[in-house]
């Protein structure tokens, strides 16, 4: 019984840690896709960029870890503003097919560029010593980095929640999600709002990519390989909400971990079966606002 209890604890812990990474990387996609109605499949490009920024600053310039993490958010957010103004904004009214073609093209270009600059090998993450190895809690050992990941992600999520629920910016975002035309007609500058929201969403992806780099390897094909996980989280959670993807990411993280721990022979396809079942039950996702 004791053994079962302690394995329950570690499954919950690892599941939450994995779910948190999934959430931080995917939430930006939920924001851009849900609010702006833009099918941004190139979301993983921003996550990969964040990861590369982190590993480069750590390895080449020996910056402290927190600073490199902050830079991965800021630089990706700044770069995304340029991309949004130059490219994305031209396709806001376009059909989904055009948006998909454009963003897939962007993925191909980013894969080639990343390969040119960083080569094909995955990049090592030089974590500071205080984030390495295991620590003992409740009689079991837990990897320090994953503890940090859970705490830090929880802080980001709390901040995001407050931002959307309690600030004027959040109110404007919510208004635009619910009824864009009305929001525009009451004088909200949706163009600027979109740019800022897009930057925050992309910056979060960059931060997620950087945070997760230790677990989800950063290498040129990252945007393609991780795309399916972002889409699962966002579609199961439902477009246009912050709560939906959070619940979905935790649900996927914990059940996926539990399944791999107890019945590893089903580990491969569990996540897909669960996604299909959930979407059959609620096609708009758990908390979806659109159908």
């Amino acid at each position, binding site marked *: 019984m004791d053994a079962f209890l302690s394995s329950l604890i570690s499954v919950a812990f*690892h599941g939450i840690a994995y779910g948190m990474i999934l959430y931080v990387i995917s939430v930006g996609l939920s924001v851009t896709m849900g609010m702006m109605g833009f099918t941004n499949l190139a979301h993983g490009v921003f996550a990969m960029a964040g990861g590369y920024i982190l590993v480069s600053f750590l390895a080449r310039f020996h910056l402290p870890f927190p600073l490199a993490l902050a830079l991965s958010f800021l630089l990706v957010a700044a770069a995304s503003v340029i991309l949004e103004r130059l490219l994305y904004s031209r396709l806001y009214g376009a059909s989904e097919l055009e948006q998909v073609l454009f963003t897939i093209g962007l993925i191909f270009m980013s894969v080639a560029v990343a390969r040119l600059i960083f080569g*094909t090998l995955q*990049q090592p993450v030089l974590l500071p010593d205080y984030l390495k190895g295991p620590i003992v809690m409740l009689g079991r050992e837990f990897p320090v980095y994953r503890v940090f990941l859970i705490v830090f992600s929880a802080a980001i999520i709390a901040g995001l929640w407050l931002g959307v629920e309690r600030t004027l910016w959040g109110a404007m975002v919510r208004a635009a999600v619910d009824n864009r035309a009305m929001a525009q007609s009451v004088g909200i500058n949706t163009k600027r709002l979109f740019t800022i929201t897009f930057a925050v969403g992309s910056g979060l992806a960059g931060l997620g990519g950087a945070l997760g780099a230790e677990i989800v390897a950063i290498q040129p094909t990252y945007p393609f390989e991780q795309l399916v996980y972002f889409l699962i989280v966002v579609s199961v959670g439902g477009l246009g909400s912050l709560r939906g993807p959070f619940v979905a990411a935790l649900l996927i993280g914990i059940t996926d971990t539990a399944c791999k721990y107890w019945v590893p022979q089903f580990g491969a396809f569990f996540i897909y079966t669960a996604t299909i079942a959930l979407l059959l039950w609620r096609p708009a996702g758990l908390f979806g606002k659109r159908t």
Partner: protein
Amino acid sequence: MKITASICMTFAAAAFACAFPAAAQTVKIGLISSYSGPGAAQGDQIDKGAKLYMKLNADKLPAGVKVELITRDDTGANGDVAKRVAQELIVRDKVQILTGVVWTPNMAAIAPLTAEAKVPFISANAAGAKVVGMSPYVARVSFTLCQSAYPLGQWASKKYKRAYSAVSDFAPGHEAEGCFIRGFKEGGGEIIGSVRIPLANPDFVPFMQRIKDAKPDALFAFNPAGKQATAMMKAYGDLGMDKANIKYLGTGDITTDEELQGMGDAALGVITVHHYSAAGDRPANKAFVAAYKKEYGADLNPGFMVVGAWDAMDAIYAAIRAQGGKIDPDKTMEILKNYKNANSPRGAMSIDPETRDVINPEYLREVRKVGGKLANVELETITTAIKDPLKEFEKKK
């Protein structure tokens, strides 16, 4: 009349020029590798190995013979694409010899074509045991998984009592698992569990936690070379499994020389058996590693796939030399069957005339720090020449 004659002369000259392009003879070689997709890091190794060999060994060709390398992308473990590009190379580019291929399924897709078109194919990497037998025009200079997993199992059974096996869930993983378990059990060891991990798996921690809780003395791991192996090793370090006295064992695929630096200190102490290490102190290997670093950068180490491609080109050059540049498929296969290379970076290797599969030396290695960098330090030579054990098992039946 005169005009017609001169036209005739021109045509005749043109026809002559076409039939005999120049005094120099050109041998066309098709190289199929993964230049894009998830296997691009591995495909890149094969490309580099083949090109480096050609650059440094032009003098090993007979006078007047040139080699033209035509490269094609198979985009990853994708048999259909590999078959298509092989077909294009054979029909359109008229290559006389094919080589390359990271992935076993791609080699399996190409093998029937080589028999149909009588174009010899030399595997520079793909290691699945059975694919060499699929066509009489296929030979291999790389390795088979059983060549390292089986002796590792035998060796481990002398040091550890209880082992857990964790391999990637695809054909080479199953081969590695079967061969390790066979070797380990033959030596009197006990397998307390085995798990097959999906190839597209982002998080290894749950699997590793399960293994840690089973408390084995040793963990046998196989993943395809690259980020999977790294992720699994990180999970091993994160969970403190080294401190729980679980020894990490595997085939050389899990500590490839090119990826090793990215794995970090979690890899320290990992024991592997393999045919090649960049840290091997044979003179031929030292020269090879130095040439590689000079060409591609001091920070890069050649992995076993570079060596596979290097030796594949050496075998091809040997066949070209023996035939004076005129490639006949059947003669080429005869030469390949008896191919021996005492100066391969991995040590002396050869091809088994009976199976056309490689005979390799195998070394026991441990990951240690050498000059501040991680390296697969060779501790002892387990065998100087091992045939693929799987085929030997089948003979005994």
